[in-house]
């Protein structure tokens, strides 16, 4: 402010200075004009006086001296100049008879004679000179006025005028300056204030002392406007803060709830966090049973909540006159801001302090999951402005609840599956033991009886016993195959790999087992089937599961025996670079093209009712899986009427076992 005032004073000084310059110029011009006008009048007056003197001289030629005395005197000198250039008479008597060129220049003297009369300004001597020729006499009457006095008078007059004008100007300036200051300063203060307000400083104040009139009104209204603005913005800020806090709580709740998938943990936490976060009296959550159209209190806050929950029963949403039921029916949020005056509010004796209630539907894509109920001790707690946050919260909770429900279902399904899997394993284990133990006894008893160990057996009895025995063995094989295929399909097939297995020994063991079957077959045939062995001598020692390889080979050989009624069966084992290649070739009926792939599917043989269906229909699928588990391949080549050859390869070492 001090700075600005000094600036104003400096500006005022400049203004004064700038005003004085034209004022001075005007004064000088006016003075010139006045001087000229005065000079003209003087010159006229001097000429007229001179002419008058000349006339008087003619009229009174003897009184020249007196005349010069009358006309002269004071500041004026009058004289008569003779043609010879001397004074005929002069106001200064002593000058009479003396030459004039002592006082006046030759130029001026010449002017006197050049015309009848006139006047001239002898500025050099500050004299006004009037002259007139005296007719007939050739003398000149001259009036010589000293102009110094006039000039002095005029100058002093101008000075005084200039001075007065300056004083007036100064006074005017000061007065107007003060006046300007009186207006400008408060205006400046106002501007300053407006500036601060404009730049966001709503705490700025304006000093209203010594403000008057319109300025004071302006200042006070500006000030009150600022105050209102401050209030508004302050209010807005507190509203924003409130909303931000609400959002933070809501997002906090949302974040917490989406993490928890266990509803029993989720819901009690949820209502408590909501109650605390929004500073509510009581928060509860009802879940909706879609099939029965019923609501059940699932979680509630505090000790009173626990009490209410213990008494709670599920209720039909159409039956009960309560806000929660209404919200469930209409799937729309409802607010009661004065519960005591409301007819919908269902007063609960455990919640005596409830004054406002708001309930929000928990919806997941228009499907009602439940209702979120909020109660407050403050009347009017729930306003339009803060309901969207609760609606959003209710939606979030709905999603979380739905997730938890889905998770629960998933978990249930997973547990069921796990249990089913375990049951299957247990079933397989018990199949292995409980089914086979009695079957083993049956087989052995039958064998013992057939052997005559317990007494003599007739032919008929023996036939029946043998049938019974082979059926029992078939049943046992079926059980074993089902166990194998279950293991294969469950991916639980495991090999017991032994190193340096002598293939020759294993092949011989299988041939030993197969030969009785062949003999049995040949016994009923007219032409026995020849069994040809084409086995390399230098078979390698390789790593394999001996039992499983025997199982595969026996399966192929017994199949060949079963399906061949004439010709031969050839077992060929060749040593190759990658391992061994086995071939079981028969001269049986052959397998049609379209069946060649299907015979490796479980139960196909049984399903298609192929004749000689003495197998389980699982042998080939199991064999193929066993060979593949060893890293080999099993395939078939067959021509109808020509016969069938099954091949399989066995690498030196199964993959991934070393």
């Amino acid at each position, binding site marked *: 402010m001090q700075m600005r005032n000094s600036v104003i004073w400096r500006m005022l000084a400049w203004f004064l200075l700038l005003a004085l310059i034209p004022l001075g110029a005007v004064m000088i011009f006016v003075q010139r004009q006045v001087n000229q006008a005065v000079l003209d009048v003087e010159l006229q007056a001097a000429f007229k006086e001179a002419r008058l003197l000349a006339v008087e001289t003619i009229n009174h030629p003897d009184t020249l001296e007196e005349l010069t005395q009358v006309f002269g005197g004071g500041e004026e000198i009058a004289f008569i100049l003779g043609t010879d250039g001397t004074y005929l008479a002069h106001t200064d008597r002593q000058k009479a008879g003396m030459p004039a060129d002592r006082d006046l220049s030759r130029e001026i003297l010449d002017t006197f004679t050049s015309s009848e009369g006139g006047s001239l300004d002898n500025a050099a001597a500050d004299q006004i000179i009037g002259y007139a020729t005296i007719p007939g006499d050739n003398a000149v009457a001259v009036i010589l006025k000293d102009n110094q006095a006039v000039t002095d008078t005029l100058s002093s007059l101008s000075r005084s005028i200039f001075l007065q004008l300056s004083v007036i100007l100064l006074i005017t300036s000061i007065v107007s300056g003060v006046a300007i200051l009186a207006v400008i300063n408060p205006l400046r203060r106002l501007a300053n204030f407006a500036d601060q307000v404009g730049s966001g400083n709503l705490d700025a104040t304006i000093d209203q002392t010594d403000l008057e009139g319109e300025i004071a009104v302006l200042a006070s209204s500006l000030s009150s406007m600022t105050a209102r603005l401050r209030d508004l913005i302050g209010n807005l800020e507190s509203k924003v803060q409130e909303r931000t806090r609400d959002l933070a709580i809501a997002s906090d709740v949302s974040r917490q709830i989406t993490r928890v998938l266990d509803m029993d943990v989720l819901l009690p936490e949820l209502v408590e966090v909501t109650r605390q976060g929004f500073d509510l009296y009581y928060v509860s959550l009802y879940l909706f049973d879609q099939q029965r159209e019923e609501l059940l209190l699932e979680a509630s806050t505090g000790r009173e909540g626990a009490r209410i929950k213990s008494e709670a029963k599920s209720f039909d949403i159409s039956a009960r006159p309560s806000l929660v039921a209404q919200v469930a029916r209409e799937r729309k949020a409802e607010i009661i801001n004065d519960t005591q005056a409301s007819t919908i509010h269902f007063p609960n004796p455990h919640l005596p302090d409830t004054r406002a209630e708001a309930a929000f539907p928990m919806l997941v894509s228009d499907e009602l999951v439940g209702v979120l109920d909020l109660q407050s001790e403050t009347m009017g707690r729930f306003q339009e402005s803060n309901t969207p946050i609760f609606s959003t919260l209710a939606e979030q909770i709905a999603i979380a609840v739905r997730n938890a429900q889905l998770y629960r279902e998933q978990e249930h399904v997973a547990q069921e599956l796990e249990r089913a899997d375990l049951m299957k394993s247990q079933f397989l284990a018990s199949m*292995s*033991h409980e089914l086979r*133990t009695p079957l083993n006894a049956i087989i052995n008893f039958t064998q*013992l009886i057939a052997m005559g*160990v*317990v007494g003599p057996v007739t032919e008929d009895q023996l036939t029946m016993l043998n049938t019974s025995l082979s059926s029992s063995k078939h049943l046992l094989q079926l059980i074993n195959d089902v166990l*194998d295929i279950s293991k294969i399909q469950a991916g639980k097939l495991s*090999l017991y790999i032994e190193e340096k297995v002598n293939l020759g020994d294993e092949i011989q063991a299988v041939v030993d087992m197969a030969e009785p079957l062949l003999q049995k077959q040949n016994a009923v045939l007219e032409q026995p089937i020849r069994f040809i062995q084409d086995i390399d001598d230098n078979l390698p020692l390789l790593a394999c599961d001996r039992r499983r390889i025997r199982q595969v080979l026996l399966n192929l050989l017994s199949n060949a025996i079963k399906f061949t009624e004439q010709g031969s069966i050839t077992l060929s084992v060749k040593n190759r670079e990658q391992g061994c290649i086995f071939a079981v070739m028969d001269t049986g009926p052959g397998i049609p093209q379209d069946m060649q792939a299907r015979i490796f599917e479980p139960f196909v043989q049984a399903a298609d009712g192929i004749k000689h269906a003495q197998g389980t229909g699982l042998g080939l699928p199991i064999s193929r899986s066993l060979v593949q588990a060893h890293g080999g391949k099993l395939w078939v080549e067959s021509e109808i009427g020509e016969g069938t050859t099954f091949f399989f390869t066995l690498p030196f070492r199964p993959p991934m076992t070393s």
Partner: protein
Amino acid sequence: MNGQRPVLVYVEDDEASIIVMKAIVERVMKLQTLHVLRNSADFMQQVQQLGVRPDIFLFDIQMNPYDGFDLLSMLRNDPQFSSSKVVALTASVMSEEVARLKQSGFDGAIAKPLNIEVFPDLIAKIVNGERVWYIV
């Protein structure tokens, strides 16, 4: 006891299996040296009470309270029976169980149902110190 060899001890809880074994040993093999223990509880005590040193133990595998593996480790911890052969009788076709039998230190395994024609030879081989894995 009449000093016949080999002395066989069969531990089995299935009565039908016991009858089969008795028929094979006593009627087919004509041996009177079979001792049957019907439960695995107090196993070692029962073995001590036999009053004769067994040549071959035949164990059923799935038994309570102790299974064949438990009985094997009990025997192996007693130097008295260090020269006795221990053979598992198993109905299992599972490769992993056979592998487990071998790893546990059984001297052999014979598949159920018993092949009555082969069984006497297997016993003879075992007495001779051979390891017998007659599984298939």
